[in-house]
Structure formats: C-alpha cells, structure tokens
C-alpha cells in the first residue's frame, strides 16, 4: 500500500511539470503584459511601463524566466505578485481555507442528496417518485448552474425589497463586523454557494447511482441473497448499496476536479474569498506568478482528490490490490 502510494506520488511529478510548462508558456506568450494596464491613466507614460517591465524581469527570454521560476519553486519560493508584492505562497495559503470549506461542503451536499435520491429511484424504478427524481435531475442538469446562482441572488434581493426578509445572504463568507467566530453565521453564508457548486455533483450521483442500483439488482448475488430469504432491507443495504457505491468512488475523483473548476465560477458569483477568485483576478491582471502558483495548487488539489479516491476504491473493493 505505501509502495503504491509512493509510486502514485512520483507519477504526479511529471504531470505537474508538464502542466507548469504548458501554463507558463501559455501565460507568457500573451501580448500585453501586466504593466500595460498602467496606461489607462493619462498621467502614466510608456517610459514608466518599460522601466517597470525591466524591474520585474519581464524582458528576459522565456526559458530563462521559466528556469528562474522553477528554481525558486523547488526551494519553496513561489515568487512574488507584481501587484501586491506579497509572496505568492502566502497569498494562496490565505485563500486555501475558503476554497476547501466551499469544496468540502459541496462534496458533502453531493453525497448527502445524491446518494439517497439515486438509490431510492433505482429501488423504486418506474414509480412516481422515480419519475420525479429523474425529471428534476434532468431539469437541473439542463440549466447552467452559474445562471441559476445569479438568478437566486436576484430573486433573494427582490424578495428582500418586497417583503423585508433576507432569506439567505447573497455572498461573502460571513457577516461583516460580527465579533468572533460564529459557526451558525458561517453555515448560513455557506449554504447557497455550496448548494450551487454541489448541484452538478449530486445530480450526477443521483442519476448514476440509479442506473448502478438497477444494474446491481439484476446481478446473481442479489437474486441469491433474496432467494436465501434475506429481508429486502438487508439485501438493499448490504448488497445493493455497497456494490452500487463502488463506481461512485471512481466518479468522486472527477467530481473533485469539477469542484476545483467550479470554484472559479462560484467564488466569483458569491464573492467568496477563495483561490478561484484569486486565480481569476490574477489572470485578468496578468499577475503571472500568482496565476502559476494558484494553478499549481488547484492542480495539486485535483491530483490529491484522485489519489484519495483511488485509495478509497481499494479499501471498499477488496478485489483490488495495490502493489
């Protein structure tokens, strides 16, 4: 097991290397550059832009800049932002908790809503509730969730104006000015963003688990179990759920990558102070060191998610051995 883990970790190195080179090249090939934005001010001059570009080392050839970045990187120095002048690592770490909070909440929502619904629909194939679940999940899949999120914000604002009641906060991680750590307030703020980010996940799980359940129900061992006279409850939970869940774990890895992707979108919509927003802003401003640093962390998160799901897979399915 530990050998397997080690091997997987070593395998991620070339992946990260390739991704960093691709990202670095893409980012640096862009015309323009971070200092150009200064020119929107009539008082700024092109001389100042050129001087700053030289001061930030933006004039050096691409491979040299990559090697410098990489050199810093292996010693744990992710570089400094062109605009905040802070170490990138610190900027990323400051925003990591918010992203993790949102991501974990969205994952939990995916499981808590998706699995029971999918299981129920599969076990009761063809009845009204099954139809309702299928219809609802299809409908939810059919609208872009970011759009739904914005409509929710607008709807909440209009309800507030009409009735004076604020159903849910429309963004932010906590109520400003509230003294101390207030878990209730955090959860209240977390609810809508996590629900929106988790929607893709639970819909996928519900639909997927439904078909998996159907498939498992048709397997010989389930029939055998039923024939042995085991009650439906035992059969459903010990045999059906357990077996139907195995592929769900495979799906979870994809879910994590999806959540990391979605972070950019939902952190923007809900003013969530996480890494996705940081990456978005940095990309707009061409703050390359920050883009690269956040990109690296997001990729790491995705790789880690995949690794965890691989390990969980082996743990749930005894047929799989890692060596």
């Amino acid at each position, binding site marked *: 097991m530990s050998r397997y883990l080690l091997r997987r970790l070593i395998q991620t190195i070339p992946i990260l290397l390739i991704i960093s080179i691709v990202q670095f090249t893409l980012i640096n090939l*862009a*015309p*323009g*550059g*971070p200092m*150009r*934005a200064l*020119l*929107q*001010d*009539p*008082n*700024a*001059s*092109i*001389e*100042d832009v050129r*001087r*700053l570009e030289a*001061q*930030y080392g933006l004039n050096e050839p691409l491979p040299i800049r990559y090697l410098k970045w990489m050199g810093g990187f292996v010693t744990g120095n992710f570089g*400094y932002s062109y*605009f*905040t*002048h*802070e170490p990138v690592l610190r*900027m990323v770490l*400051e*925003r990591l908790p918010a992203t993790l909070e949102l991501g974990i909440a969205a994952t939990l929502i995916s499981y808590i809503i998706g699995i029971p619904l999918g299981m129920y629909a599969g076990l009761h194939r063809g009845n*009204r509730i099954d*139809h*309702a679940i299928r*219809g609802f999940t299809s*409908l939810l899949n059919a*609208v872009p969730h970011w759009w739904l999120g914005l409509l*929710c*914000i*607008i*709807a909440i*604002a*209009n*309800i*507030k*104006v*009409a009735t004076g009641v*604020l159903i849910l*906060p*429309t*963004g*932010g*991680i906590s109520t*400003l*000015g509230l003294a101390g750590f207030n878990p209730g307030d955090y959860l209240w703020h977390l609810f809508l963003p996590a629900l929106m980010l988790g929607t893709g996940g639970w819909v996928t799980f519900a639909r997927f688990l439904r078909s998996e359940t159907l498939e498992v129900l048709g397997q010989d061992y389930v029939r055998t179990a039923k024939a042995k006279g085991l009650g439906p409850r035992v059969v459903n939970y010990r045999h059906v759920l357990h077996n139907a869940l195995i592929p769900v774990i495979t799906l979870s890895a994809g879910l994590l990558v999806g959540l990391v992707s979605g972070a950019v979108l939902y952190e923007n*919509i809900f*003013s969530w*102070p*996480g890494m996705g927003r*940081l990456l978005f*802003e940095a990309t707009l401003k*061409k703050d390359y060191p920050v883009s690269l640093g956040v990109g690296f962390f997001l990729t790491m998160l995705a790789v880690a998610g995949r690794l965890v799901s691989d390990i969980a897979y082996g743990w749930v399915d005894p047929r799989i051995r890692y060596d």
Partner: protein
Amino acid sequence: MQHKLLLAIGSALLLIATACAPQPTAQAPQATSQPSGQQQPPQQPPPAQPVKGGTFTDASFADAATMQPLLSQDTASSSYINRVYAGLTRLDPKTLDVVGDMYEGKGELSADGSTLTWKLRKDLKWNDGTPITTQDIIFTWQKMMDTNVKFPYRKLYQDAFSDVTAPDDYTVVYKLTKPGFCPALNSSGLIAPIPKHVFEKLDINQNDVNNKPTVTDGLWALKEWAKDDHASFNPAYKNYVRGEALLDTYQFRIVKDNTVNTQLFKTQEVDIATPDPVDWDEVKSLPFANAYTYYPTSGASWTYIGFNLRNPVLGDKAVRQAISTAINKQQMIDKIRQGHAKTQFSIFAASSWAYTDNVPKFEFNADKAKQMLKDAGFTPGSDGILQKNGQALKFRIHYNAGNKQREQIATISQQYLKDVGIAVEVIPEEWTAYLKRIGETRDFDMFVLGWSTGVEPNGSANIWKSDGGQNDPGYKNAEVDKLFDQAATVAGCKQEDRKKVYEQIQKIIAEDQPYVFLYTSESLVAVNKRIQVNPVTPLGLSYDLQKWQLTQKTQ
C-alpha cells in the same frame, strides 16, 4: 406530468428573479436632451447634535492590491490608502482650488516661478505619537525617485519637480523642473507621505508593513483585512487633520461587479451602489435609497472613438469629419447611458473648467456625412461600400472585451457607418493586449476607449502633443504643441488666463477630429438613507468623510 410541474417551478424562480423588479414603461423614453442631474434629493438639514457610532459598508469591485502609497496603481488600492493616510493637499469642495490639508493655506510660487513653497502644520502626529515633519515628506520623495522602488508614476513627478528640499521641519520647497510650470501646483500633494521612522529600515517593495500599516495619520485605522472578502477600519485618533470620525466603522466589501453590487444594495448588505444606467430607475425608487447624480470634476470620465491617423485614408481630415458626422452621439447617450451623460465636442470632459463648447461641432446628420464623403471623392463600389482609387472604406474597430459600454459603442457605430456606406469590423480584445495594440504596435484603424481625467488640463498634453507618450492616434500639430506649453506656463497660473489658451487648443483639435468625441458620463450613486453623507458637489459625496454619520431617527 411531473415534468410540467418542474418546469413550472423553474419558471417560477425565473419569474421571481425577473418580474419582481419594477417594470419599465413599455416604450423606451424618447430622446430627451435635458441633462438629468438637476433634480437632487432634498438634503436633510444637518442635525444639531452630531450622531456618533454606526457602520458604513462600501462596495469595491476588486480588493486592494497594496496599502503602500508608492506601489499603488489601481483604484481599489488608492481608496484603501485614502482611508488610512492623510493627504498633503486637497481640492476645496467649493472652489475646487488646490488647498493645504496637512499643509497650511496655499502653496507659494516664487516670483520667478522656479520654486513652490508649502508650510506644514505643526500639530500633526503619526498615530504612534511621533510628530509628522518635513523629514517624512522628503523621505517619501526620495523613495519615489529611488530607482530601486517600483513606483509607477516617476516620470510625472520628474517632469514637475527636479528636487524637493526642507529648509526646516515645517517648510517644504519644491524646485520646479520648468520654471513657471503651473500644473506643478497640483502635483505637490498627490502622493501621501509615509512614516520615515517605519519605512527607512524596510525595503519599500517588499515588507510586511505595506499591507498592515499601523503607523498612519488618516481618518481611519485599519482594523482587519481579510483578503478578497472585506477590509474594515475604525476611527483613528483625535489628531487627524480634519477632526474625528463620527461613524465607528468603515468597511469595504468585495463584490464581483455592478450587477451584484446593485443586488447587495437592494438587500441592504452594502450601503452604496453605483448602478449601471439601466438599473438606475429601479435603484432610485427603492424606499431606503438616497439617489445622487453629479458630473465629477476629478475623475471625470469620458468616452471617445479614436482614429489611426497613420492610416492614409483616416489621415484625411475630411474622412474623419464625415465619420464623426455619421455617428449619432445623442442617441448613444440615450441608449447606452439612458440619458445620463452630456455630449462632448472637444478634448476635455464637459465638466472640466477648461472645457468650451465653442468649437467646430460635427453633429449627427447622415445625409450630410454622405455628401461629405462624396465631396471627398468616394463613390459606391460594386458591394455598396464607398471607395476611391480602389481604396475601399473598410475599417476595424477595436475595444476591450468585457466592457459593455464600449461594446455597445462599437456595435452601434458599426450600424451608423454601414448606413453611410462604410464597412466596419468590430473586434474585442483582452485588456492589456488591447492597450499594447493601441499604445505600442499601433495596428488599428479605430478604437473605443475612455479617459478618466483629473482637474489639471495639462494631463492631456501627454495625449495631444506630437511626442506625447499617450498620443495613440499619431496626431501631429506644431501649433498645438506650442499652445500646450504656453497654457502650462501662463504667468500667474490663473485659471481664466489659462482657459483662454486651452480654448484655442480645443478649437484646433476639434476641427481635426483625431477622435470622435462622444460624451462625458454622469456619476450615479445611491446611498442607503441610514447614512447621512456630505452634500453632493463635483467632488462627489465623500470629500469630508469625518462628517458622515447615521441619519437621526426622529426628525
């Protein structure tokens, strides 16, 4: 069947989102040419006893990058910095003159115009108790000029001053680079001084104090800053140059954009909104909103379409004038700004003191535009597009992607020009790449852009002089070059004397039409009624933040 039900639920959500808002009148308002800024909401008379306490929540579309004044280059950073650092000079809200803030009275220009002298107030202290002296100002100046510091605006200051010295602890002497250079009067107080005793041991570019300034001298002191979420400030101390804050907390909340800001204003999660013109009527009618409209003097924003005069066809003045005549500026104001803008015919914002309306105007007239092009020798080609000597009137018009207003201008202009036989291709481009194209590679025909200009008209010299760093159209006129120098060095630096020279400049450039001048935008601001802000002036609402207070509940 269930699907129908679900569809119904879906549509219900959509309806709540869209229909609750007040419906616009069926017909869009007809073109009205009256400026709409005149009807101000009645100002409550100031309460006899100032109200203490309360929180004001501001909205910012981006978090500040830094709170180090020498590194700041974005608006969010300067708003944060202005909360915690006091300024040397300010604009008088009534006269709009530059007057002392930390400095006393007015700056004194020597008889030969070679030096400018300011006196520093003697009662100022940093909030750790250290007195503020000219040493801090000199230190700040030295850092601005230090080649190792990544200060973005060095050239502006080098052009104004060759040296800054302090004969004693409370006198500062600015030596002008060009004697008699009037704009220098405005430049003397632009960057807030930083405490020497804190920063002299630190690398200005990178240190931990930059984003956690504790030794400051502004109205507010930084309480906490959660990056990308919020920053909050408490009243600093009693020695702030203009008194003590009445509110107890001033906080910034980061929101994605105008649309989200407007929603948060509706839920009263933030106290201020600067809505898009389309949302203005809705925001204005909210029961808890005080609505303010004004044409700002400092930070006046105006919009134009620039030409590339290096292009042989666009180098022809007649073509530029015809294009300008083909574009209906008033209709753009009505549609894009919902009437919240003024037409502008020359190189200064319509709200600037130097602006004059008395210039050649190219008001919309499609038939006249066609005639002008015909007179210039253009005839319709086989595809209906005008051409002369095989050179067809086909242009590209660039704008920066994501800017809705400029997208609308480009798209609408395309239609106007099509109506007179000119083909235009609209091309959006990423912001910095766009700035590089316009400012350096110059590979463009026409472009949509705007300027946000300060009070000092000489800021535009950089745009219009032949060797100006921001002269994107490639405009060259020796007369204009001469006049700009003359206007900047008028003896005595009186506004009305300088204005006469600027009027001449405006006439010449308006005749040449290197830009299609479009309009100056009106600022639209809504503030929650809980907060009583400063009376609206061309400087906006926040020139005396220390006087902001909660509105008294009982009248």
